[in-house]
């Protein structure tokens, strides 16, 4: 039971990270109707920028951990958001009215560019960082000596996720930008007729998605203590799976899907086999799409002729 509780905690933390990435997928899919294949790599870039900012701050002699984390968070979000904007500008906007497969292929190309760009710029080796946030709470200690732990970093990941989600929900539901985004999602032509700047709204969608991915990248760095240039690929597919599981286009769905994928992956590793955890995640993607193509919270897509 204690073992299960520990895995549950680990799964929820991992799920929060997936959920943050999944929101970027689901937002872009909702508005532009394409899979932003490079989003996983944006997450990876976010992790790298967080790492580099952290190193620089530490070498400048800054010691206050909360201040460091705040600066790292802001810098990483800002620069990664600019990456998201640039990717949209270069690779997707010119293809807005091109044929169906073009944006997808362009996105795959962009994903290669970003992966190999960070490999060339930062080297192929894994970058480890020493644990930055240590300590935690013991929730329960069983007779057998098994300890259920909730570490501080796990608390930070979950709280950051909740705060960001609240902020993000407010942004989508109560601001001008959020209204524009919802309008573009429903009907771009009509939205532009009513004075919504569609190009700008789509750009902002990418910017926000990238900023959330940057937070996920930073949380990943803090939680696992390493980044490498290839981590965006698998994390990206899993986050996409999460978005599909929750119902693509639905924001609460993305978070729910993320948590579920995190839980499934952790529990699968804990009870079955670590080697096949990715197989489990990918199989879920296939199974969900067969039996529940609209996901848990998604709306059915109307097929138009």
């Amino acid at each position, binding site marked *: 039971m204690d073992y299960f509780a520990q895995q549950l905690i680990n799964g929820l933390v991992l799920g929060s990270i997936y959920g943050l990435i999944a929101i970027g997928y689901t937002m872009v*899919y909702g508005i532009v109707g*394409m*899979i932003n294949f490079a989003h996983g790599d944006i997450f990876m870039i976010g992790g*790298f*920028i967080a*790492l*580099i900012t952290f*190193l*620089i701050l530490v*070498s400048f002699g800054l010691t206050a951990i909360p201040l460091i984390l705040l600066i790292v968070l802001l*810098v990483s979000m800002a*620069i990664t958001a*600019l*990456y998201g904007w*640039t990717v949209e500008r*270069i*690779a997707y906007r*010119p*293809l807005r009215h*091109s*044929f*169906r*497969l*073009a*944006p*997808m*292929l*362009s996105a*795959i*190309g*962009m*994903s*290669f*560019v970003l*992966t*190999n760009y*960070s490999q*060339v*710029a*930062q*080297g192929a*080796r*894994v*970058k*480890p960082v*020493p644990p930055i946030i240590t300590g935690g709470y013991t929730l329960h200690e069983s007779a057998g000596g098994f300890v259920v732990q909730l570490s501080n970093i796990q608390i930070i990941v979950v709280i950051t996720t909740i705060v960001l989600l609240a902020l993000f929900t407010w942004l989508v539901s109560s601001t001008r930008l959020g209204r524009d985004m919802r309008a573009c999602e429903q009907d771009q032509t009509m939205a532009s007729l009513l004075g919504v700047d569609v190009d700008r709204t789509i750009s902002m969608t990418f910017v926000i998605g990238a900023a959330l991915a940057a937070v996920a990248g930073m949380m990943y760095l803090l939680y696992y203590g390493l980044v490498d240039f290839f981590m965006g*690929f698998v994390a990206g*597919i899993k986050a996409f799976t999460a978005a*599909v599981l929750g119902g693509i286009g639905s924001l609460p769905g993305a978070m729910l899907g993320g948590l579920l994928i995190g839980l499934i992956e952790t529990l699968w590793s804990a009870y079955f*086999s670590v080697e*096949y955890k990715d*197989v489990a995640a*990918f199989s879920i*993607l*296939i199974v969900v*799409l*067969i039996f529940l*193509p609209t996901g848990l919270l998604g709306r059915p897509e109307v*097929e138009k*002729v």
Partner: protein
Amino acid sequence: MSASPAAQTSRAPGAAFIFKKALISALVALVLFSLMIGVRTEAGSDGQLTYWTRFGDLAAMVAAVFGGSILVELLRQWWGPVGTVRVVPASVQSTLSFAGRLVAPVLLVFTFLVPVLFYDERYILDLGILVLTYVMLGWGLNVVVGLAGLLDLGYVAFYAVGAYSYALLATNFGLSFWVCLPLAGILAAFWGVLLGFPVLRLRGDYLAIVTLAFGEIIRLVIINWQSLTGGPNGVTGIPRPTLFGIPLTPGDDGLAAMLGIEFSTTHRIVFLFYLILALALLTNWVTIRLRRLPIGRAWEALREDEVACRALGINTTTTKLTAFATGAMFGGFAGAFFATRQGFISPESFTFHESALVLAIVVLGGMGSQLGVALAALAMIGGFELFRGLEQYRMLVFGMAMVLLMIWRPRGLIGHRAPTVFLKTNQAISSDLVKEGHG
């Protein structure tokens, strides 16, 4: 340049505009590259991360973006707005179309002559085999993507199934290449149907991501099922192919001894060259024949409009499944060939990069055009060879090329989609009417 100088100046924004745009690009580049290129991190010997700055590289990159931005803007002005119709003189046009008709036969004859012309140049022969392997993979994937319009990002899975089928059957049961080749194709086709079933209802992007997941599942299973596949170490000692039972070895029963000529290792390379050429031509021939059958017509109809297809009574289930199975079968053949050529296979040869490379070949070749795919494979693999010394920049350039290609020529280099069947006469239809993505 067809436009008169007066029209040119009226259309062209001033130098100030170009300068401003380039300045903004450079600023964006400065922020983007500031940390990623300006600072280099590396784990030291004690596991501690250190960093050093590279402001020179950063400045060079920003300057390159600034210059590149100006250049792109000037090129854009020189080229004119997208969609400008350029009038080509009739004589040039007829010469071009005559040359276009000649390309395929000339290329084929040249390919046949490659082992004769470059008999002593092992490097060129090896490169030729590699190019032909990708031509075959491209033609195989072309059935799925180019004809049936099903975006498959996991094609490498069938390549892997074919390769491992041959490798395991040959090393465990001692079956010969010629027995295993059809078996590898059948097994791969079987897996194609297996993948096809669940994804029948999916369209476009969903299909792409599921096939990608499928490809990854196959690779992960190969890595982890160590008792069967040898895991990351792969399968070694895969038998070399024989000429219908006659081995290409220096022994007494070898081909050289039977023909009474001196043994040379080049014989095997030449044999492999013609083997893959034959397999590729088989793929091409089958595809061309299938296109003229009802099933081929159904594939192309499916690509253009699935709803209309169903309305016309085409069974989309079998149509999709046959497309998957046919494409997968050719992938399996190519995989078996790959295994016998290398003599060693490991999961590393079957990553997503391979799928993307083959897909890029098909897209670059113009999706559906057989000649285009062959030329694209030649250009891609040849281009990769040029970057051999710059291993890590290869994929970077490849990705950039894919993005740029989608922007400039989304229909590929040879991007025509002539219908293969006409009602009485061939009528010109405005491209606006046949643009897809509106279904």
